[in-house]
């Protein structure tokens, strides 16, 4: 197998993994604040369709990215209202949001099925400009790909090095204690949902505006649930999430690698690898307190009577 082919596989892995990493970072923030967002699939679809629609109407993909991010944040506000303000069950509310996303995205995206858009432009790094064109074209990435690692670092810094991040993690561990120490669990969880939703929106934007460059119903194909698995796999840590997303897209790339070298392995079986690995990782930690999830993950905060 030639160097070119291997580089091609890596390049395609980076392309397919980017949307996943953004989404995983978003869900990491949710879960650190104590919220399991099972509606992520719906949020992704709403963002992908609205971003695509705006990009198609305006001809400007960057406007599409901004709208997708905002749409993600806003879609999560529905979840916020249900589980934070109305204290509804998190899993049920998330699934309801998923169905909402199925419907709303189909409605938004319907006029744009099969339409071509100006995709996010590719930028060549100056350092790579001396490479032969063939190689260079493999590493012409769009702005969202270049930004994803810095954003992961930024999220890590926000969560672990700032006062806000400390407050957010405190709410995720024990909202009552956080409240007693002067923080507002309601506000912090709303903020976490908005920020996480915007990140998921960026992921969705990359999916529809740079990767597939079209819109179709259910196009996210379970990415929301992969993100939930990857958050667990990466032990609720944004930097380990980079590894998690690479692992998933690595499985996709590995599949291409096998195909090009003539080995027949079902792509469907390879698709299950990330989930099986996550299960194995969960087993390996098995109940040890050190690796446990945020302590009040999934719990509804009842305090602060209205």
């Amino acid at each position, binding site marked *: 197998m030639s160097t070119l082919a291997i580089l091609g596989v890596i390049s395609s892995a980076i392309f397919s993994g980017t949307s996943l990493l953004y989404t995983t970072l978003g869900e990491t923030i949710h879960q650190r604040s104590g919220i399991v967002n*099972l509606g992520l699939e719906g949020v992704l679809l709403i963002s992908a369709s609205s971003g695509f629609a705006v990009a198609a109407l305006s001809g400007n993909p960057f406007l599409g990215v901004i709208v997708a991010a905002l749409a993600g944040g806003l879609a999560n506000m*529905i979840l916020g*209202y*249900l589980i934070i303000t*109305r204290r*509804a*069950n998190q*899993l*049920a*509310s998330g*699934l*309801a*949001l*998923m*169905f*909402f996303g*199925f*419907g*709303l*995205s*189909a*409605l938004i995206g*319907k006029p744009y099925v099969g339409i071509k858009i100006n995709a996010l432009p590719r930028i060549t790094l100056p350092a790579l400009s001396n490479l032969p064109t063939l190689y260079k074209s493999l590493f012409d990435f769009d702005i969202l790909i270049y930004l994803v690692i810095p954003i992961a670092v930024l999220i890590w810094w926000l969560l672990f090095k700032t006062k806000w991040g400390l407050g957010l993690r405190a709410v995720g561990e024990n909202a009552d204690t956080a409240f007693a120490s002067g923080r507002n669990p309601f506000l912090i969880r709303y903020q976490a949902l908005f920020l996480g939703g915007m990140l998921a929106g960026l992921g969705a934007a990359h999916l529809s505006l740079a990767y597939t460059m079209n819109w179709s*119903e*259910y196009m996210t194909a*379970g990415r929301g*649930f*992969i993100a*939930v*698995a990857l958050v*667990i796999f990466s032990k609720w840590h944004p930097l380990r999430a980079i590894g998690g997303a690479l692992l998933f897209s690595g499985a996709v790339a590995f599949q291409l690698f096998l195909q090009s070298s003539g080995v027949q392995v*079902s792509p*469907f*079986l390879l*698709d*299950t690898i990330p*989930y*099986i690995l*996550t*299960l194995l990782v*969960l*087993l390996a930690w*098995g*109940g040890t307190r050190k690796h446990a999830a945020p302590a009040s993950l*999934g719990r509804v905060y009842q305090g602060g009577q209205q």
Partner: protein
Amino acid sequence: MSLNMDTKNKLPKPVQSLLNNLLRYLLMVLVVLVLFGIILLITGKDPLQSYLDIFRSAFGSAQGFSEVLVSMTPILFTALAVALPSRLGLINVGGEGQLYMGACLATWGAITFSDQPIWLLLPLMTLLGFLGGALWAVLPGVLKAMGLVNETITTLLLNSIAPKLVAFFVFGFWHSPMDTNKTPNFVPAARLPTFFGTRVDLSLIIGLVLLGLFWFVMTKTCWGLEIRAIGGNSQAAKRSGIPLNKYWVLMLCLGGGIAGLAGMSQVSGYYGVLLVDFSRGLGFMGFLISWMSFGDPVAIVITSFVVSVIFTGGNMLQLTRGIPYAVINILLALTLFVVLAQPKFIKRKTA
């Protein structure tokens, strides 16, 4: 508030609370209809005509009503699959995966034993469907019993694996010569019998019987008592000698098996083939229905019925108004949102 005052002195308390509840539900329905109506208006459709279409599609003809029952069948099973373990305090989010595995194993039976007579093949497929779903719940049950991983996470992860396994078998081994994404049509002996020329099949009866059985076991038997004891306080139940771990594994598998039956009923009754990615959230819908019904069998039937009316209406809207079928999910989700938000239009004195 004023209503509360007016009725307080005139009517006995149960009637008053019934009236309050009725008014509350009516207002909730109104909120949903107005919200979805606004969305329809924005997209340039006539909301009143659309609602009439939905109503007519469900209640306008015997055929339409039968379609509601058809659409209700799988979610009766997937809701029971959640309700059963929930009585122990277990959260089974894995109905979707269990349904796929049930469909997968039942299809294997239909293909392998296609030369068997119907009285042998159908029970076999039912058994295999149950087994497929139950096996898919063994791992979460055992891990929970061992105290390793919480069943919510494991059932959720397994959901994503099952459709891919189905795709693996269909694309790799079972696909028909014409289409690679589905199996050949099942032989007549592998199809559930239907009633009165409609698409309503035997599995609807099985689902209702299972729900009845569930009610009976929970309220009238010693197992039901023990299950309720565990659901109430698992530690106390353990100290009084109830084998907690055994119940956990057993009930999750039983739930999984019932979700597997939903898969079997879909391939054997509704489709007559195994189609890749045939379920768009039937398992998740079961979770929502069970949750809204507090795991109560009668409420499950009523909620499933309402959800199915909406689904059937979605088909009609697609035909008459050119709205994509998926859009009906908005109406469904708005209903769920309103139920989840529990709006209090009427202030109650005792909260």
